[in-house]
């Protein structure tokens, strides 16, 4: 479950340096001239350190980053990238699932439909949003909004950020499988452009249920996997807890953005600011906005039939086998 500590182990040198700079800045008494110089030098060092650490993240470290609660979530991006957001609620049948949010918004003045997983930044919000793990009614709300967008010829932008669809009694009773399957089928024939972005953790079928798209983007430090590293290690090596086995699973599953680009499961990596998206929400949002705009501009030129044909063909080619 996504309850990463606020400071990740490998970020400790960064945090220490930050504290040092902070101390110097707030040092009491007269400020000696060379303190300013030292601050500048330390800040340069901090930037280098961030760059170095983030250039060399291991897959399991990327999992930690992707799950970190300080990362921008769906609504953090919505607030920074879009205007005129009107959130819509409910599946019209059972209830409103707060693990998925959606609604109308504008990107550069043009109307778009937004749908995405929403995790909570604290325990209280996480209880309400079920840690971003949707029930069937969440996926049905998502589909309702996508069909609404189709009706008014409006593109759909989805945001993926979930450990997975919720495995519980109610979820099974109300047809979790059917809800996910229905979205996969409907998204493969939706007559408007769809861009999906993996912003944090893309966890299995619960992620894919918002992820069938003309373009699939992935934030640089996001991960996307068929199973959690813990689940994989537990099933294959009977040990989902030890750091060694989690590390082994993270490496073996090939879940990072460069891996997925190479396998052509995603179309583009969205660069994150130095030190990861959580270090600078504004810069992360600017980066994503730019990539969304470029892709949407290209997709808007395609007629619906062509769009759907290309999208289906893309998915029909997925996989690698021997013959």
């Amino acid at each position, binding site marked *: 479950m996504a309850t990463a500590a606020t400071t990740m182990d490998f970020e400790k040198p960064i945090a220490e340096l930050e504290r040092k700079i902070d101390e110097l800045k707030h040092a009491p008494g007269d400020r000696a001239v060379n303190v300013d110089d030292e601050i500048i030098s330390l800040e340069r060092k901090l930037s280098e350190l961030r760059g170095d650490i983030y250039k060399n993240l291991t897959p399991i470290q990327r999992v930690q980053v992707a799950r970190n609660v300080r990362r921008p979530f769906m609504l953090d991006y919505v607030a920074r990238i879009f205007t005129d957001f009107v959130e819509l609620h409910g599946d019209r049948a059972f209830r409103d699932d707060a693990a998925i949010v959606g609604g109308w918004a504008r990107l550069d003045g043009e109307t778009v439909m937004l749908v995405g997983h929403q995790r909570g930044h604290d325990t209280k919000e996480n209880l309400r949003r079920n840690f971003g793990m949707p029930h069937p009614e969440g996926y049905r709300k998502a589909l309702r909004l996508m069909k609404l967008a189709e009706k008014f010829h409006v593109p759909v932008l989805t945001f993926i950020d979930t450990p997975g*669809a*919720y*495995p*519980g*009694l109610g*979820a*099974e*009773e*109300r*047809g*979790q*499988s*059917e809800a*996910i*399957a*229905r979205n*996969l*089928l*409907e998204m*493969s*024939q939706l007559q408007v452009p769809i861009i999906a972005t993996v912003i944090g953790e893309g966890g*299995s*079928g619960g992620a*894919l*249920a918002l*992820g*069938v798209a003309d373009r699939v983007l992935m934030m640089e430090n996001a991960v*996307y*996997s*068929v*199973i959690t590293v813990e689940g*994989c290690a537990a*099933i*294959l090596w009977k040990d989902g807890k030890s750091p060694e086995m989690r590390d*082994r699973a993270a490496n*073996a*599953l*090939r*879940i990072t953005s460069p891996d*997925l680009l190479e*396998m052509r*499961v995603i179309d583009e990596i969205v660069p994150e600011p130095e030190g990861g998206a959580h270090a600078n929400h504004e810069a992360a949002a600017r980066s994503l906005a730019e990539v969304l705009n470029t892709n949407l501009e290209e997709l808007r030129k395609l007629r619906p039939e062509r769009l759907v044909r290309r*999208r*289906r063909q893309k*998915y*029909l080619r*997925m*996989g*690698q*086998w*021997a*013959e």
Partner: protein
Amino acid sequence: MAWFRKDKKPRSPRRERLEIPADAWEKCESCGYTDITEKFVRNLNVCPNCGFHRRIRAWDYANIFLDEGTAEETEVEIRSADPLGFPEYAQRLKKATANAGEGDAILTLTGQLGGSPISLGIMDFAFMGGSMGSVVGEKIARLGQRSLEKKHPLVIVCASGGARMQEGVLSLMQMAKASAMLSQLAERRVPYVSLLTNPTTGGVSASFAMLGDAIIAEPGAVVGFAGPRVIKQTIGQDLPEGFQTAEFLLEHGIVDIVVPRHELKPTVGRLLRHMSGKPAATGWLST
């Protein structure tokens, strides 16, 4: 009866059969009833005492559904690769092939059901727990394409523990692949019936298993997105009696019909005839 027909392809017998003579006795896993193997086989491996539907192999379903002498296996050349270089995957594949056959976790065929041509996909739980990797996805896509071109109805028998994690996110994408194919069949109004057998969970459950124009299930089959163990772990309590069984799903409106094994062929036949605008077949009206 059709299901007595000899298999076209040789397959390795189940391990327990290797150790016992052909006229041996078998024991029902559910109630403990013991009888000669022949009796179980004649009854399609449904326990004569309690009605428990024992697991059978893909070719057994082929023999149940297809008219005698009409079965033709398709996509026989496709094999699993190891796209991720995943630890131990190559060995596991080798072992699964030796134990369960060359068709990976799905057997695909064309043939006739009650005189009408169909495409038939049957998952084989014996091959790595019926896990869906690239081969299962590709075989379904090609089988679907045959259905699409000829307008022959598609029937898929599901049995799977989920995605094949050794193929990573590529196995996840097979859910989207199968669904993209089925959306094309839907668009051209080619009927698709899915049969859920024990167990159908994970990625298979959350894709083509739940997209049938009719969804039918064998009695007692466990069907769900998450497996019972995972749910139990998550909620920290025991699951209610009969949770996620075919009967439970019927009650909750998730499957259309629960059909005993010996009624599968006539039931699917009638469904397909209704959905293809064909008249009822003789002999099926009374069943």
